[in-house]
């Protein structure tokens, strides 16, 4: 039981970390114009939150308008 809880939490966090890297490199600029050109320290600072709340951000990224010039 306890092992199952721990596995679920770790799995969730692992997906969050896997999502976090491309999100902080590209996705964040798409969902929030104010993040364009922001320093990497800022991106690192919000990484823990991205790992915890990745489903919210993933939904926003999917719905974000395509960048100009993309097909």
């Amino acid at each position, binding site marked *: *039981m*306890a*092992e199952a*809880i*721990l596995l679920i939490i770790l799995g969730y966090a692992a997906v969050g970390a896997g999502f976090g890297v491309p999100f902080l490199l590209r996705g964040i600029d798409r*969902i*929030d114009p*104010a*993040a*364009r*050109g*922001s*320093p990497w*320290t*800022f991106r690192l*600072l*919000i990484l*823990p*939150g991205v790992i*915890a*709340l990745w489903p*919210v*951000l993933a939904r*926003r990224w999917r719905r974000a308008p395509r960048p100009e010039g993309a097909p």
Partner: protein
Amino acid sequence: MSVGYVTVQWNRHKRVYDSLVGGGVALYLALFIIAGKTLYTGAHAISDEILAIRALGTCAYLMLHVVLCTGPLARLDRRFLPLLYNRRHLGVATFLVALAHATIAIGFYHGFGNVNPFISLLTSNVNLGSLSAFPFQLLGLAALLILFLMAATSHDFWLKNLGAPAWKRLHMVVYLAYALLVLHVALGILQTQRSPWLAGLVGAGVVIVAGLHVVAGLRERGHDRRGAQRTARVNGPWVDVGCVDDVPDRRGMTATVGGGERIALFRYDGCISATTNVCAHQGGPLGEGRIIDGCVTCPWHGWQYRPGDGQSPPPFTERIATHRVRVVGRRIQVDPTPLAPGTAVTPARIEEDHHG
């Protein structure tokens, strides 16, 4: 404001404040450990780990009290406003100290066996039905998770991307964390059979936090009720909201008009302007702010708006609603219907008395 994010919004005040917090935490921990070493010697000596666990735990618990009391204190007395501006940094610091407490506690009490310490924390005590043997550590774990979520989402990025209402709701959960911690500490003290005056301190903390919230809430209600009565003295659209002498120069005042809506009044350059009391950032009380560099400056995070038209000075683009205002004799009258955000309104000139 929303022109590119910075990692941490540090300015000179915040640096001073953060150094004070860091120094204060270090001093508290040092004093706690020295006192513990000198007071308990010989057979009563406490191990270094337990002393560290207690020092860090009580430190984080105290810091949480300061965090929770700043809101009502700032509403009761403006001199506490600087604490409010810096509350986010204090919240993050509280989480870090609590994390250190929990890490050492888990390592110390659950780290020896070959069971994973986390599994051990979750399984070693399942006396959920008994108060005197309840696994109080689990309450601490739940509270720590909440503190983590709040610290992790404290950056403005989250405020904007979760939306202010959701962000606010998330951060109200701090009260749940506080309740869990009161139980964590109370049961922990009960189970480690510590002296009863510790329980007294925990109780005093609860009374102070709850009391301040009740007093500040009651005062706000009284203010609103007096405001609502004002609507009786309407003439045309104009509602009398007070005397120009009630508004200190370069400062604001809050007036409540019928329906409970709050309007912020500002006095500067011999004029009065009126805007909504609600900051576009996070709903901060603009009427408690000041005029800095000719702009209304929100007391919470310092967003600025020109009092004449409610627009943030370039390059910022935020806008707040303005209100029509006039001065008759020494009385200020406003039109309670808000104008569209960013609408320019001629400030009302104050006719100076020319005595003798």
